[in-house]
């Protein structure tokens, strides 16, 4: 559909020019009607080349003796003999799109001369054409050896093999070059072409022994383990039909998988693949990431109790204390996005360390009690008065402010 639109757009432009629908003078390339006098005047006026026509210098396909002197031997042209041309001459002919023959270059030395000449003219197409000939007329070992000494030609060869999908040969070449990490990654990349998850999992397993860098080796291992488990989890979900099918976790990133697990398998024992604890341990997920993800999932389900437990830790005296690796203001934001009731929000707003931040968050989310208490603690009478006006006349919060304002024992600062 996209491509259809792209093609149609060329037609659409034409129509637009004629209708000028919303009065916008559409910039059109044929501002003047073709064939009009002003158009032809401009045509001739814009020709600055005295006598010669405007056109791109095109590659000449008709034989002409008057052009290029260098590299041509007239005798060979007269003879019309393709087999007598030197490497330079052959390359020239190739550049001009004329018939040529590479077969005549039999010896290794000649072939290499040909390759070097093609490289010297920088034309990628040409270099590749010569390489194709060398590929079929040289042994693999010799070709590799010679390419290793010729950087530009080597690059083109790699590109050619990639475009032609010659994976096996490419891998061998990489090995010969000692570019083992590149080779490993190239292999690994192929997994993107495998749609079936079972096959993809098996393929990833086959990649495990490849010479990745240490870091990448770990990641590929994780990738395999993850997919393997995702398949199992999906299969179980299917059997027990507990959870809606629409949430497929196949090929999802690990954090997404963890979210899914916190959503549907929260509290499961560490022994099962689908439990959050298991995932957390196996994939070495940081505490921060874990809490953020679990928070998101439980908040979405409105399980405020679970949310609460996430932040409970026991301090050294054995008392339960609330702790969070992410600022509590972030926690409040996430809770609010999931429509947490005010009393739940207030609990976490209260845990915000910085007083300024606490106040601004409380104001933002209308946690009246906290606002009132803060102003009370700051002994700020004026702010209380202002804030009272925002509240409903008979609400408990309104009355609370009234009580405070009437309290003679408080020494207000303003």
């Amino acid at each position: 559909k996209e491509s259809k639109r792209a093609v149609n757009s060329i037609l659409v432009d034409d129509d637009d020019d004629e209708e000028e629908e919303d009065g916008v003078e559409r910039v059109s390339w044929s501002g003047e009607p073709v064939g009009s006098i002003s158009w032809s005047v401009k045509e001739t006026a814009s020709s600055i080349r005295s006598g010669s026509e405007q056109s791109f210098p095109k590659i000449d396909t008709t034989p002409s003796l008057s052009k290029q002197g260098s590299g041509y031997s007239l005798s060979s042209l007269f003879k019309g003999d393709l087999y007598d041309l030197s490497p330079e001459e052959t390359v020239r002919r190739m550049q001009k799109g004329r018939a040529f023959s590479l077969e005549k270059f039999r010896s290794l030395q000649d072939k290499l001369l040909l390759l070097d000449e093609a490289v010297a003219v920088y034309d990628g197409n040409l270099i590749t054409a010569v390489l194709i000939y060398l590929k079929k007329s040289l042994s693999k070992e010799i070709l590799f050896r010679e390419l290793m000494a010729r950087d530009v030609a080597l690059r083109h060869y790699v590109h050619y093999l990639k475009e032609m999908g010659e994976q096996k040969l490419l891998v061998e070449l990489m090995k010969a070059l000692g570019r083992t990490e590149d080779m490993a990654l190239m292999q690994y990349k192929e997994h993107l072409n495998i749609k079936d998850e079972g096959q993809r999992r098996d393929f990833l397993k086959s990649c495990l022994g490849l010479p990745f860098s240490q870091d990448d080796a770990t990641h590929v291992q994780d990738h395999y383990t993850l997919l393997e488990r995702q398949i199992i989890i999906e299969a179980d979900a299917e059997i027990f039909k507990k959870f809606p099918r629409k949430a497929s976790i196949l090929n999802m990133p690990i954090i997404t998988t963890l979210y899914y697990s916190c959503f549907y398998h929260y509290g499961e024992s560490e022994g099962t693949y689908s439990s959050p604890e298991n995932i957390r341990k196996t994939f070495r997920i940081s505490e921060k990431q874990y809490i953020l993800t679990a928070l998101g999932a439980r908040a979405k389900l409105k399980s405020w109790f679970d949310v609460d437990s996430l932040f409970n830790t026991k301090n050294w005296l054995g008392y339960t204390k609330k702790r969070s690796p992410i600022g509590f203001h972030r926690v409040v934001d996430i809770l609010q996005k999931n429509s947490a009731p005010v009393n739940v929000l207030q609990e976490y707003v209260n845990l915000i360390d910085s007083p300024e931040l606490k106040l601004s968050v409380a104001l933002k989310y209308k946690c009246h009690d906290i606002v009132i208490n803060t102003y009370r603690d700051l002994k700020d009478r004026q702010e209380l008065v202002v804030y009272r006006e925002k509240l409903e006349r008979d609400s408990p919060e309104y009355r609370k402010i009234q009580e405070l304002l009437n309290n003679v024992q408080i020494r207000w600062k303003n």
Partner: protein
Amino acid sequence: MASHLFCGRVNLNILREAARKDLREFLDKCSGSKAIVWDEYLTGPFGLIAQYSLLKEHEVEKMFTLKGGRIPSAAVKNIVFFVRPRLELMDIIAENVASEDKLHPRDFHILFVPRRSLLCEQRLKEKGVLNSFTNIDEYILDLIPYDGDLLSMESESSFRECYLESDQTSLYHAAKGLMTLQALYGTIPQIFGKGECARHVANMMLRMKREFAGSHTQILPVFDTLLLLDRNVDLLTPLATQLTYEGLIDEIFSITNGYVKLPPEKFAQKKQGEGGKDLPTEPKKLQLNSAEELYAEIRDKNFNAVGAALSKKAKVISAAFEERHNAKTVGEIKQFVSQLPHMQAARSSLANHTSIAELIKDITTSEDFFDSLTVEQEFMTGVDTDKVSTYIEDCVAQKDPLIKILRLVCMQSVCNNGLKQKVLDFYKREILQTYGYKHILTLKNLEKVGLLKPQSTMRNNYPTIRKTLKLWMEDTNEQNPNDISYVYSGYAPLSVRLTQVLARPGWRSIEEVLKMLPGPHFEERQQVPTGLHKKRNKPVILVKSA
């Protein structure tokens, strides 16, 4: 004529006309009625050269998109393929040819853009269809005039090809394109350059010039200097969020081949009696170039200065319409009426851009935009580039689009000349866990091209470069700018600075800084026929960046 191509200092219309002429010639070669099968990648660039009316003139009756299977039936004599020289496309073409109706065969032709490819023709031969083609030609479309002062090769993948795959074919095309330019606009006397790729292009140009030694063009050189810059000399600029009007349109809605697609709701015409139930669902497509007066005025302004410009324009247009009350005589009324189309166009243009500006403002006034920009500017001024950025960490946690994350971490890396191993490892892990393990490939690629890499033992030269070239201007004036740093509200693009210094006082004055940037820097002179060399007060410099 393409009026937007006249407004620069160089008349680029010549280039466009030459391109159109070649296209016409090829179409006439395939005589008779024809249908074009398009490689969809080409429809955009071609749109900058010609539109359907030109094709119609040359008996193009139908157009299709290139895809597998059989070409739809159409009562035309010829089928013409317009394709890039890519092997995958050859396979599709072969399929098309093979499934052609034997009873009513049509003639086949191929136009390779921008060049023929032996590789491709060989592929067609292997598939057994090469002989089915009557005409095989190439259409050399290198540098396409985009606007009065801008040419583009529209080669999206050339950075990837050059720096990642070490495939320098696009440099070859660039050199060819520059040779064409010189054929039309005269030999460029001076060539300056910085970077490996720049050096290659210059070498190719000089070599090509030697090969065509016979033909001297008797044209007064239009360009005084050619400056070739490698992209990797300035990796920072494309990472930063653009802040001009046009820049923001591109950031938010993406401008392709001079067109932008916008959400239709804001552009729906409110006709009388309709309750708004007929809202269009198709995005609104607008062409953007300097032929549109208002756009030409505001496109390069910092977005913060656009509002004022729009209100000013609104007043001017209102006043113009008010003039109808002053028109008393027949002559005056006639004059007013003749102005009407222009005024209506101006008003419509104003309406469009006001809507666009509103859409942009919704984004730029958001908290997230502000936070993101702050972090960018901190990196650019060297603040905290050696630590993990909590903002980036938060964005990853919220699963913001990966491209946003990558831009920021790459920016930090570029401004720090590589990240501390601990910081890099942290970002990598976060990215892989949140966006998927397959991105080890993405990260590897970024490292290869130098955008995201570990710190080397070499010291970070970026602060020195920044100070010497004055890349950060504290008191940049967004409303009435006197320095290019206004485009990023403080940051002056490195590549622009290099060009400015080249023009005056010259690169000799920044030798030390140039050495800190990657790749060789060089200067070449080309022979210009005597009598044609003219020194200008304001030199015309052509900047080409790979």
